[in-house]
């Protein structure tokens, strides 16, 4: 007997079983879509960055308040990084303009305590924005530390962040969401991400977010 015959017979065996129709797959598809919307509470990146800010607070000396405006200041370092001091969550457009003047395209949102922006507003360059659920703060720390977004904007003290343009590719937008923390020691928390080059960043739709 031809050695291929068995294989050919097997290939045609039950070939009359048809591929599934969309109706037959509707239930499975719905289960998948339900599964893509996480039900359990996630540890979010802003929370971790807040923790970084809190840790930095212990080591950081009293704050230098920018003297060009009372709300925020942008200073360019000799290494090309920008130090942004945020004393007051006021006038996000002004901060954007300042960053733009320093060569960084940004989208800045200031939120009051208990607010968040509905996600997704944009397509992030890495998994730190809207990525898959991360189990626990360890996994999150790993994700964040390895990401370009977190290198581009780092919380360096309770009122300052460092922006490193070397990690921002042409056309990308640095998206910054500051949230009032209701705490004079740690006045705000930051979510900082990079949006993919030349893709839109939707305005923030404010939602309740206790996180």
């Amino acid at each position, binding site marked *: 007997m031809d050695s291929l015959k068995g294989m050919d017979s097997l290939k045609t*065996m039950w070939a009359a079983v048809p591929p599934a129709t969309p109706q037959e797959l509707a239930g499975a598809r719905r289960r998948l879509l339900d599964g893509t919307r996480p039900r359990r509470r996630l540890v979010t990146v802003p929370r971790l960055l807040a923790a970084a800010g809190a840790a930095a607070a212990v080591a950081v000396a009293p704050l230098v308040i920018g003297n060009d405006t009372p709300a925020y200041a942008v200073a360019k370092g000799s290494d090309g990084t920008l130090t942004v001091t945020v004393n007051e969550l006021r006038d996000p457009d002004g901060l954007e303009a300042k960053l733009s003047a320093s060569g960084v395209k940004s989208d800045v949102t200031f939120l009051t305590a208990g607010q968040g922006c509905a996600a997704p507003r944009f397509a992030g360059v890495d998994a730190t924005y809207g*990525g898959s659920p991360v189990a626990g703060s360890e996994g999150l720390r790993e994700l964040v530390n390895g990401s370009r977004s977190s290198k581009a904007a780092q919380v360096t003290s309770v009122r300052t962040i460092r922006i490193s343009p070397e990690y921002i590719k042409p056309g990308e937008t640095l998206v910054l969401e500051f949230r009032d923390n209701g705490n004079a020691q740690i006045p705000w928390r930051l979510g900082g991400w990079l949006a993919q080059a030349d893709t839109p960043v939707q305005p923030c739709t404010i939602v309740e977010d206790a996180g």
Partner: protein
Amino acid sequence: MTISREVIEVDDATLIERSLNEPEIFAVLFDRHAPLLHRYVTRRLGPSEAEDVVADTFLAAFQRRGDYDRGRSDARPWLYGIASNLIGKRRRTETNLYRAYIRSGVHPAEIPGRQLEDGVNTLAVNRPLARALLGLARADRDVLLLVAWAELSYQEVADALAIPPGTVASRLNRARLQIRQALSQEERGE
């Protein structure tokens, strides 16, 4: 979320990567591969469990998508590998299906019309095949059916089951030998 045409045309690896930020995009992967995966599972387990296995496969894949090797543009080996595991947990369903077929000559998901055209000849071949499948070791059957029914290459089967290509070849040889023997016994009327 609207899914753009551009998303529909990119390869699986790109889709999976984009789904890290836009989870809904994973549905495009589902639409692309679920119809044939469902067919494959139905051939092995029958229609009643196929939907569950397909749903569980894609949910498991979604959960693990961060670990996906983006060097592999085609996600089928990954998906069929996950499905193979789930099928393996339903071995009794699978063997019951083969037994029922040997008795009745009808696969529960076949379109009846097509089967009638050459029903007698088909049955004369399919019955011994079902008997042979029933007699195979599970690992050999997985390899054989991924090649014959899912149309994966040796390398893709190796990727799917996380085994070396040499193991794929040896399992396949063993399984094919048993299939050939089953068919020739039938021809000799044994």
